[in-house]
């Protein structure tokens, strides 16, 4: 502990005249579960794309997993995991083929992929489903599988982009158990969500408003600071203060 997996200073991203991300700075500690909240269009996705090495910042610097966001994008990609609920598996490939594919594109050896496939299927209790098309799996299973696949190359940090969208509460709960497991083993978790109850599960939470980070603290401190009952209220207060609304 004590080291930072993500260090971002004065990060700005402009698209023409529009400033999507406006001079944000923050750190994410090793092994932390970091909640990244914000209304739609607040710049969450843009910031996350930069952290994942998909996009170059207009200005500002920082490191992710020890690599520079301006120059080390290829290295960043190799050392992070990424999962998005909407599209993390190929529905027309089988469970095993999906695992093989992502093992392959993250540069794992065949032997390693075979071993990991077995371990993963045992852990998920999906050995009997391994030759089923991923598209035919129930949503909850798809999600767990997608999460495990995103972790196949043992990344130091995993980015979860609204991982639990459209899922029932019970499945969400078991999914968060997986997240806790991963964090306990030392993986840093960077998660965006629309569910404020999930924000409570995070170690620290940041709220983006209009391209800036309007608040960043532990859920308990935020609740105390805004005199709110729960994170939902905190979020409403912060977003509601937005100028022009």
């Amino acid at each position, binding site marked *: 502990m004590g080291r930072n997996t993500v260090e971002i200073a004065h990060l700005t991203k402009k698209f023409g005249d529009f400033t999507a991300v406006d001079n944000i700075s923050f750190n994410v500690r090793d092994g932390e579960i970091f909640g990244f909240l914000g209304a739609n269009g607040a710049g969450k996705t843009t910031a996350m794309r930069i952290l*994942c*090495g*998909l*996009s*170059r910042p207009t200005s500002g610097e920082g490191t992710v997993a020890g690599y520079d966001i301006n120059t080390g994008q*290829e290295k960043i*990609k*190799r050392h*992070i995991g*990424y999962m*998005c609920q*909407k*599209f*993390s598996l*190929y529905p*027309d*490939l089988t469970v095993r*083929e999906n695992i*093989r*594919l*992502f*093992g*392959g*594109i*993250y*540069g794992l*050896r065949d032997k390693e992929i075979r071993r990991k496939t077995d371990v993963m299927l045992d852990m998920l209790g999906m050995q009997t489903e391994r030759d089923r098309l991923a598209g035919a799996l129930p949503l909850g299973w798809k999600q767990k599988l997608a999460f495990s696949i995103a972790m196949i190359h043992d990344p130091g940090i995993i980015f979860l982009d609204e991982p639990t969208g459209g899922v029932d509460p019970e499945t969400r709960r078991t999914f968060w158990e997986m997240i806790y497991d991963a964090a306990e083993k030392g993986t840093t978790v960077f998660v965006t969500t629309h569910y404020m109850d999930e924000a409570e599960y995070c170690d620290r939470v940041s709220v983006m408003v209009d391209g800036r980070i309007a608040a960043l603290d532990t859920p308990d401190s935020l609740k105390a600071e805004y005199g709110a009952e729960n994170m939902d209220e905190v979020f409403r207060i912060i977003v509601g203060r937005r100028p022009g609304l």
Partner: protein
Amino acid sequence: MKEFAASVIKEFRHIFRDRRTILIAMVMPVVQIILFGFAVSTEVNDVRVVFCGDLSDPAVRSAVDRIDNNRYLRITGRLYNPAGIASVFRRNEADAAVCFDRDFGSSIVSGRASARIIGDGSDPNTAQMITSYIRGVLQSEQTDFSVSFAGGQQMSMTPVVQLMYNPAMKSSYNFVPGVMGLILMLICSMMTAVSIVREKETGTLELLLVSPVKPLWIIVSKMIPYLALSVVNFTSILLLAHYVMEVPVNGSLLLLSVAALVFMVTSLALGLLISVISPNQRTALLICGMGLTMPVMIFSGIIFPCESMPAVLQWFSDIIPAKWFIIIVKKVMIQGDGLASVSGELAILSGMAALLLAVSIKSFRTRLQ
């Protein structure tokens, strides 16, 4: 390289899992060749000819025999009155009629003999072809006759039309290169465009981009399966054309394959460009359909000859890669020309490939930022 191999395997899996697409891609060329070959045939083949004339006249007899003995023509009846021609055509009992003058045999000596060839103009293209073919047959009869009768002395000047490379005016000589251009274009451009746009639509492209595989390699890995598919299609068209349609491969097979490969790369680059422009699969399909298939159909010479178009359209046809490919195929396959003759077209095609590839990769990269 490991990463690249994994994504190529993935693309092949996508294609093979999608039975319908693979079926269409493999069967389409075969169906098109057979369709154009047998159904949409405009060639002179098994033409039924009726004649009207005096069979006791040796000159008429010899001319009729010559028609009947021709591979592509067949005498099916004799009319005693030219007035009956219309009803024969109406009952669809003949495709053409030949009327010899009453004193055909005696006036042929003076060079004033005349025979009328009547075609069924309700199908102008076929009629045109049939009548000119029969005229050719009669002219050769006349030439022979003049030689034997006057002992080599030419009695009247008659132009003898002979079509080189394609004496029977087989339409397969025309449509095989056209279909080849069309199919390769469709498979390479449309399928690549759709497959990239599909991943853009579902968002899985993002998933690949966030992986360590370089964007360029993702694109190349998407192209390879379609390139392979096109090679299979090219081979099947060539085999069908050669063994079923009896279209010769007079020139070098290697040169033909090289040209096809260059054309495939051009089409792949076009597909990539379309995938960058289109926000969804429907747009991609629309652009391919209106922007690629139609022009190729129109300018490939399958339907209309390019040379008879207005100048503006001819200029427009110049920017269509398929046109140049089709010219090369015609020259190499049918005329049997070598590299020297097609080097101009090949250079244009290669230039287009390089330009399109550069533009599409550049715009794809910009799109990522």
